[in-house]
């Protein structure tokens, strides 16, 4: 067992881990931040996406030990300070960007990473960026629409296909 310390959603967090402890397990099982979902065993679904030092990573495919000293952001830290939904979360609600909600934490974290680098993405930029985030419910269309809306762009023209 080894000790790790990191900043999670702005607060210091530490715990005892094994070599094999995944960042997703550390967040969910030790810090009880169960908003980060684990949807697969093959690093393909993206439900577990968090930000580590500002970039999107699959927390199921990174050892907790590798995040020692890192700045980690999860879905639990995304809401505004007063507890209201942030712009991306609100857009998901407004545009029906979720159904069962299982993929949503990863979708929101990927969207946040995209908009940080590319504040006004095109529709194809959004679709390309979400290649590693699988949704089995929505057909993606309203997710794309929500992210376009969150970037402040007019989504009236994005008709349902």
């Amino acid at each position, binding site marked *: 067992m*080894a000790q790790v310390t990191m900043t999670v959603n702005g607060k210091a967090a530490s715990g005892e881990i*094994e*070599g*094999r402890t*995944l960042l997703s397990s550390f967040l969910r099982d030790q810090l009880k931040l169960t908003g980060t979902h684990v949807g697969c*065993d*093959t*690093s*393909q679904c*993206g439900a577990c*996406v968090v930000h580590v030092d500002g*970039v*999107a*990573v*699959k927390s*199921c*495919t*990174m*050892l907790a*030990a*590798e995040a*020692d000293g890192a700045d980690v952001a999860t879905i639990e830290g995304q809401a505004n300070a007063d507890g209201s939904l942030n712009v991306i979360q609100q857009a998901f609600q407004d545009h029906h960007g979720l159904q069962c909600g299982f993929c949503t934490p990863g979708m929101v974290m*990927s969207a946040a*990473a*995209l908009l940080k680098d590319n504040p006004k993405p095109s529709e194809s930029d959004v679709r390309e*960026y979400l*290649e*590693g*985030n699988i949704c089995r419910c929505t057909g993606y269309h309203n997710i794309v629409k929500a992210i376009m809306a969150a970037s402040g762009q007019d989504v009236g023209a994005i008709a349902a296909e």
Partner: protein
Amino acid sequence: MYNFEFAKPSSVADAVAALGEEDAQALGGGQTLIPTLKQRLASPTKLVSLKGISEMQGVCTGDDGALCIGGATCHATVAAEAGAYPALASTAAHIGDPAVRNRGTIGGSLANNDPSACYPAAALASGATIVTNSREIAADDYFQGMFTTALDEGEIITEVRFPVPEKANYQKFVQPASRFALVGVYVAKFADGVRVAITGASNDGVFRWAEAEAALSANFSADAIDGLSLSGDDMISDLHGTDAYRAHLCAVMTKRAVAAAA
């Protein structure tokens, strides 16, 4: 996943020493190794992370004009910083998805030598040099079949040097579930000839298509491929595509790469 110890040395020398222990294994970005460990297909006693070694990070241009990429540089950094070799930057920008690109490394990809991976085609077509802690290996000698390379036990890829071609392009026919190449073709035109490397197709891993190289060295246009074909006899056949389909794609993707490069 079986348990293991974790170490994160800050120099190549310390990493090599740590890898000298029995059943120790290098950890790059973990984008292949961690899923493999989850399936219990590997059981190292110790993982030695290469991510803390600053001398293995980043992209620069060498004295001979070659693009030098640190072995632990992630795909996203290559995509952003390999502007001196646009076809390579674009190849890196289309590996997997953004989260994979933020962790996965060039050294890990070349060490793994997945038969459908992108960097092996880039390295072979470019005539890259694989630099390790102990030697330099020409790409032509490095790739030795599916998941097999010239690396010795415990040897670390510290840098990869890419000569920059006059023209180059990589065309990947994406296998949509895995995002790897169903077939990918990398074409590189140098002053002294053209090199064509194909990934995703052969049971022997990445290979050069000599016939297409000769034709393109004489006439660098997509038409030069007309009438050329590869046999599917020794190609991968799976539910995503038969051997004959892959053989057909090899020629189609070569043409597209030449058209895009020319």
